[in-house]
């Protein structure tokens, strides 16, 4: 077997090979490790490759044998984990100098569940420092590159996970989404990424950025695998008080094809405005025509507060971040810049040397929004706008089952293109932020290619309506039948 054979594989196909005895976990792991050795010096999707432990784990699984009657769904499957999710004994840096060398003393709930399901932790993926960014250029360890074009960004902040999937360095990955960090890189790399309903996946062990917005999300090459991963990581967790007390997601929640054909799809007109690349709008309009032919109803709707959500987000998220990141003081874990002086001096030295520019910018912004005299003018206002954004969606879902929008107004941009002006980078998230502010699920799906760059389509659903969302996503994936990504890495460099 070699990597090219796996291009169109889902987890079920690997499991079939395991069941037939034609493949064993160590062999599969070796193929992915070789792929990482082959292309990751160009892509830099990984911050840490968990080679030794992964190999030991694969060997252990083989020794225990594969019990066909109760075989766990991810038995022997390697998975890449975004580096802001705590992994026992495996470095977790959030792509920050301040957590360089940090080795968590516990596993995140999602990691426990993955391991119980038989998965093998392949490594930790690159990201924007503390998930603050939309290009993975804010990593303290250097940027990740887009497998479709090495001169372009893979999106962010889960850019490492998205690039690893598109280049088939890994068959599955986890990301996290605060304002679009799963969906935008998924769109830029032509793979699938889900931001779940707030509270559907435990945040225990996810390093906090903005607690009222952060969610861990499954990322995969197909909708089918995204569902498999979501079934495993979702569901109640006593260790996260914001985790909804509901059972894990079940496939039974996904409607049948004939139900999907009866769906009414809303198109929020604010998401198809002038600022969106016309080739992205054109690609999505073709898809919509296809859906109409299949019997679905397309209806224009309005989410009038869309253009205010971005500003409100950049008040709320940095405010929460400035509070959450106060814990990095050089005392309990991570970096300490000691030397002469008092405790206060140590705090200043550690934080000043440990945090990168974007993290400092957001800490300052959040501290300002929360500071005495400005709380009413900013933070309170941000929270009020959040109410309006949520109400927009509630009204829209009275008229339709799901919404379809672009994920990003632009194609993957060039490295360095947007780093000079922070606000321009913030605009990259304009279509992913509103659903995050409302805490509702949204999925990014590749819906076509323009000049060999993928176009992401976003499906947004009401709270806990992931089943309905997957129903349409599966339908669309089948209707479009696009080839799964496997770009020739490094062959696209322009002269």
């Amino acid at each position, binding site marked *: 077997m070699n990597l090219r054979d796996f291009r169109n594989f889902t987890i079920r196909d690997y499991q079939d090979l395991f069941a037939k005895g034609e493949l064993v976990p160590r062999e599969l792991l070796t193929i992915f490790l070789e792929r990482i050795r082959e292309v990751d010096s160009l892509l830099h999707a990984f911050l840490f490759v968990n080679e030794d432990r992964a190999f030991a784990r694969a060997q252990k699984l083989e020794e225990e044998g594969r019990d066909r009657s109760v075989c766990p769904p991810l038995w022997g499957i390697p998975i890449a984990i975004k580096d802001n999710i705590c992994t026992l004994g495996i470095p977790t840096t959030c792509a920050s100098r301040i957590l360089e*060398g*940090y*080795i968590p*003393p516990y596993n995140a709930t999602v990691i426990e569940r993955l391991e119980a399901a038989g998965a093998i932790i392949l490594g930790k993926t690159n990201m924007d420092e503390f998930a603050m960014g939309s290009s993975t250029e804010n990593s303290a360890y250097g940027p990740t590159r887009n497998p479709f074009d090495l001169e372009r960004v893979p999106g962010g902040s889960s850019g490492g996970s998205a690039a690893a999937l598109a280049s088939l360095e890994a068959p599955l990955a986890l990301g996290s989404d605060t304002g679009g960090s799963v969906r935008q890189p998924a769109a830029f790399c032509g793979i699938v990424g889900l931001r779940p*309903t*707030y*509270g559907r996946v435990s945040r225990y062990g996810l390093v906090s950025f903005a607690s*009222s917005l952060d969610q861990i999300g499954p990322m995969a090459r197909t909708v089918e695998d995204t569902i498999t991963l979501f079934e495993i990581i979702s569901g109640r967790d*006593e260790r996260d*008080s*914001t985790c*909804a*007390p509901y059972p894990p997601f079940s496939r039974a929640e996904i409607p049948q094809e004939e139900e999907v054909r009866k769906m009414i799809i809303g198109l929020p007109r604010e998401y198809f405005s002038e600022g969106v690349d016309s080739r992205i709008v054109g690609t999505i309009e073709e898809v919509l025509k296809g859906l109409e032919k299949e019997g679905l109803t397309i209806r224009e709707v309005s989410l009038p*507060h869309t*253009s*205010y959500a971005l*500003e*409100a987000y*950049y*008040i709320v998220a940095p405010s929460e971040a*400035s509070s959450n990141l106060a814990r990095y003081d*050089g*005392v*309990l*874990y*991570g970096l300490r810049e*000691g030397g002469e002086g*008092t*405790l206060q*001096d*140590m705090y200043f*030295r550690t*934080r*000043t040397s440990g*945090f990168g520019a974007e993290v400092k*910018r957001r800490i*300052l*912004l959040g*501290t*300002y929004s929360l*500071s005495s005299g400005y709380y009413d003018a*900013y933070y*309170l*206002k*941000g*929270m*009020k*706008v*959040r*109410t*309006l954004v*949520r109400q927009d969606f509630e009204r829209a879902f009275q008229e339709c089952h799901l919404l379809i929008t672009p994920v990003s107004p632009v194609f993957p941009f060039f490295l360095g293109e947007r780093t000079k*002006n*922070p*606000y321009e980078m*913030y605009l990259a998230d304009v279509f992913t932020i509103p659903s995050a*502010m*409302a*805490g509702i699920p949204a999925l990014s799906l590749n819906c076509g290619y323009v000049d060999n760059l993928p176009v992401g389509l976003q499906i947004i659903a009401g709270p*806990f309506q992931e089943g309905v969302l997957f129903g349409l996503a599966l339908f669309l994936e089948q209707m479009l039948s696009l080839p799964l990504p496997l770009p020739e890495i490094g062959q696209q460099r322009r002269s």
Partner: protein
Amino acid sequence: MPGHVSLEEVRKIAQLAKLSFSEEELTRFFQDISDIIAHFEKLNELDLEDVSPTSHISWSQPPMNPDEPVDWQGSDLVLKHAPCAAGRYFIVPKVVEKEEKLS
């Protein structure tokens, strides 16, 4: 005046956030933050008088857990990876200066 942050305010905020900057860096961050805050002015177009704030999105009733201590075996690992520890304690630089009066 909201929307018009001053260099001195950014200096003060940096102190609160325990970050130090050179004058050059401070000026740069001041410009970035002024630009971003200027965009927040857009929210003044909205009438928010009677809107209740959403501090936290919860689409479900938060569960109540029994308040019982759980045995956790990880404390040795926590101390092992601390920047500076001795025995069961984290070591930090001196907190109170000798000459400082305790009131």
